[in-house]
């Protein structure tokens, strides 16, 4: 039997068609609409937006559909599309203190101004498969009850409350990030990652980083590989306004709202005889509702801050963490091993054969010491 070794354009086309067919599945089952994915697979959409670093629920939903449900592949599609977009403006920093909150919890205070707002969460569900969901076409779930009173419009961030008392370190801009204006903040998507990265770039890299990777690293810090003794100061999720300052106007205008999840992790205090004790912060922020990711990010951020003083645990090693956190890079490079390596393998094959021959000759020479080589 002849073994096919060469791929051609027709073969590639056929593979693409096979993919399209497999992705669609049984055509007797109705085609998923992008709107269905956007509305009913919202957390998948949120993850694709966060790691794709592009806020567009429709596009993310379409990418999920095109990617056959594979989220890293959908993230990749969104990233590649992002490359084709010009950067028209740099927004003002979003103000999460003015968030339209849908969820807000703190593990450090039982009650606090604005209260605890549980919002949509899996936290207290029993993870029992709900077979009722399998019955399609049923009535939609009843609307969740409204609160007796509207949410407190003033919902200060826990970190700000602690900060007012000087109990937590101030967030200070890193080196090169002062000087005012949004342009002072480096943009990881427009300039290469170099080390040491600085906190602004680091937070950007973490915000785009692979949720699974960051989750495992965060977990490792809780198991003694870089102890940080964290408390969830506050998690909040909701909508924030994005503002830009058009040059010809000179004042900010709102161009839209985005959903974000923010986590402020309050960590072990630092201090000495001369410096009063203070809690330290770890910060996580993601596009969309990605609570697990925001929490993991805040733990890893804090771990990396410790790393500034000397690396100990993997999660404290900036180069290790940031160089390997991107799912598009990691997935690509791991999977590139399936590309042809005939030439390199041939070189190795040839070398191994030569080495084996040399060994055999040495043994042969030892046996036939008197014979002249031919």
């Amino acid at each position: 039997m002849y073994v096919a070794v060469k791929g051609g354009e027709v073969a590639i086309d056929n593979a693409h068609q096979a993919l399209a067919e497999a992705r669609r599945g049984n055509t007797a089952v109705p085609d998923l609409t992008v709107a269905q994915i956007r509305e009913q697979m919202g957390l998948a959409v949120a993850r694709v937006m966060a790691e794709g670093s592009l806020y567009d629920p429709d596009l993310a939903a379409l990418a999920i559909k095109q990617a056959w449900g594979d989220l890293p592949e959908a993230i990749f599609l969104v990233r590649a599309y992002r490359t084709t977009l010009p950067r028209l403006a740099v927004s003002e920093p979003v103000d999460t203190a003015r968030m339209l909150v849908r969820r807000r919890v703190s593990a450090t205070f039982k009650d606090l101004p604005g209260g605890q707002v549980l919002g949509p969460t899996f936290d207290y569900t029993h993870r029992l498969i709900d077979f009722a969901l399998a019955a399609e076409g049923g009535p939609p779930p009843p609307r969740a009850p409204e609160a007796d009173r509207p949410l407190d419009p003033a919902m200060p961030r826990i970190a700000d409350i602690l900060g007012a008392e000087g109990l937590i370190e101030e967030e200070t801009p890193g080196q090169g990030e002062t000087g005012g204006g949004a342009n002072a903040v480096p943009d990881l998507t427009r300039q290469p990652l170099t080390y040491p990265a600085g906190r602004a770039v680091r937070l950007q890299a973490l915000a785009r980083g692979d949720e699974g990777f960051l989750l495992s690293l965060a977990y490792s810090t809780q198991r003694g590989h870089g102890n940080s003794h964290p408390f969830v100061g506050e998690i909040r999720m909701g909508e924030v306004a994005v503002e830009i300052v058009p040059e010809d106007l000179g004042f900010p205008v709102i161009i839209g709202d985005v959903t974000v999840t923010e986590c402020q992790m309050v960590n072990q205090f630092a201090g000495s005889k001369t410096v009063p004790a203070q809690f330290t912060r770890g910060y996580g922020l993601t596009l969309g509702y990605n609570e697990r990711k925001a929490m993991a990010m805040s733990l890893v951020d804090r771990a990396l801050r410790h790393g500034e003083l000397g690396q100990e645990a993997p999660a404290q090693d900036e180069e290790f963490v940031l160089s390997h956190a991107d799912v598009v890079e990691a997935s690509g490079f791991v999977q590139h091993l399936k590309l042809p390596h005939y030439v390199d393998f041939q070189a190795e094959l040839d070398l191994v054969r030569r080495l084996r021959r040399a060994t055999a000759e040495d043994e042969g020479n030892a046996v036939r010491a008197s014979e002249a080589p031919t």
Partner: protein
Amino acid sequence: MIPTDDTADTGAAPESGYTFGYLDEQTKRMIRRAILKAVAVPGYQVPFAGREMPLPYGWGTGGIQVTASIIGPDDVLKVIDQGADDTTNAVSIRRFFRRVTGVATTERTAEATLIQTRHRVPETPLGPGQILVYQVPIPEPLRMMEPRETETRRMHALADYGVMHVTLYEDIAQHGRIATAYNYPVTANGRYVMSPSPIPKFDNPKMHDAPFLQLFGAGREKRIYAVPPHTSVVSLDFEDHPFQVQSWERICDLCGADDSYLDEVIADDEGSRLFVCSDSDHCAGRRAAGYRGPRADSQAGVALTDAMAAVKREHERDRPAPPSSEEMGP
């Protein structure tokens, strides 16, 4: 609006919805600046803000970005992977550029103005007008000895390269010879130790004092480096264990070439093997000129030749009628 996956190649103009070369003009300028710096300092890895491309990291995104930022409408592009124009990844990248630039493509090394390659330098010598763009997975030659970029950058800055010879020494001590067969480190312009990308060391001598421009793009690692024309590229070695390239005791089974890099092809399920040129254009050109290898007429040899010819016909069909000079084959 997302460009649709329209399979019709016009071949003459970039598909609507894309910028010429996919990248926006600002990005191209940024990459060109990195290339200029790289050319000015041969072998030095210039960081650049690599973008996500629609092909995965590891598939040649660095080379693609370099090509995309220097390609012009009059260029004639050739893309090879493992030396061959007909490997799937080469086909896919060539098709990508046809789609987003509309430039002419070719399999003939001599006709190309721009050649993007993974893992080989073509057998046909390149001339002054040509540019060779290498796809690079790991641009840092010191990486396996020192994983930390903060340290490797310092080692490059100080030309602190002793560790490279430590590994070569260790090869000889353990194996009796330098056991690096590909991605064999070189010194560019007498200064920077450089990865030649994972080409077999057979190709290293072609880089030295070459009349053509060599550009290296590493997309995931976001580095560009270069070897300008007529620059020394010296493979690391010892005086008493000089650098040597692979040589074969056999010749190409299809075209009889005795000076090309040979791929081993397992020809049937009995495990019988053919040795054929890895450079498909070189092999096809020789066969068209009437050269015959020892097993060109064997069943396996004929089957392989037919498969290659079929792939080539697909390529010809997939683009506008080529000038008659491109006609090839008996």
